[in-house]
């Protein structure tokens, strides 16, 4: 079966990946603040670095959704559509950086 999902070409690819990374960093910062406020500094390393699979997936999904919303807000969906990139392609691309970084943070020795 041909899925027909295409990623954006070079300049657009970089822009979307950067936005997804920034959103992931902001999400992580908010999680750290939340843990700091409600559980204290001693839990920060254990609870805020490796979130666990469900929370990591949820954060990645949120980042992908926010990146898509940002694309729609900037009216870039038509430009990307003209390049053969669907909204599904945007969501898939935007979910890659958070998934990769989440995997890295969980693998990192604390």
């Amino acid at each position, binding site marked *: 079966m041909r899925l*027909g999902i*295409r990623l*954006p*070409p*070079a*300049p*657009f690819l970089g*822009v979307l990946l950067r936005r997804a990374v920034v959103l992931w960093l902001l999400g992580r910062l908010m999680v750290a603040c939340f843990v700091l406020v409600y559980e204290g500094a001693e839990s920060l390393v254990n609870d805020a670095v490796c979130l666990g699979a469900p929370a990591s997936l949820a954060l990645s999904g949120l980042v992908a959704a926010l990146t898509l919303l940002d694309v729609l807000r*900037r*009216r*870039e969906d*038509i*430009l*990307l*559509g*003209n*390049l*053969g*990139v*669907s909204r599904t*392609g945007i969501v898939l691309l935007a979910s890659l950086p958070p998934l990769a970084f989440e995997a890295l943070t969980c693998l990192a020795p604390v």
Partner: protein
Amino acid sequence: MPGPRLTPRLAIESVWKQFGRRPVLRNASVWAYAGAVTALFGRNGEGKSTLLRCGLGLLRADVGVTILGDRRHHRPSLARLARDGLFFLPDRDLFSPQLTVAAHVRGLVARFPEAVPARLATLLRDPALLGRHAWELSGGERRRAEVGYAGARGPGVLVADEPLRGLAPLDAQAVAGHLRTLAAEGCAVLVTGHEARALLDVADHVVWMTGGTTHHLGTRDAALAHDQFRSNYLRHI
């Protein structure tokens, strides 16, 4: 009406669309033919942009079908249509504010190696504009850049929503000429706008939209001879 032997390259057919309880489109259809410019006219709020957006999958139509080449799309998607050679120029803001015009062109060539960036440079006139971001361009410069970008794609079908919007008369003429040139090269051009004089000069087929439905008036001369079109839309032109 176009002759019976003509087969449209793009057909947006029998579209019905309602926003809440307000019907906007009632069995509206529009066709674009290879090598010809089709001009879609209509007063503000008659549903021209809605028809195009429904046909290209940017809005979900209640009923309707889009046929591009020999493929029927009951749930069209711009990305899929674009891969088959269609380019849609929206009525505003095609470019990303974060990238320069040249970066947009690089992306276009990366995706479609057959693209012809020289077409954009011709319409832009000043090569320095290529190095600027969209927000650094004036409204007219941006519009010329966007139309040039659409032409640079070398599309089989170009759907342009108000491509002459905000252009000075001379620039509007140049852009209309650009659309004519694209058609002469075999592109099917479907265009909307209120610059009736400039668009009628380049139009091969005229479609008039009123009351949410479309009336195919035929050639430019036939449209100019159409009493209702003249009195209800053109007035003094």
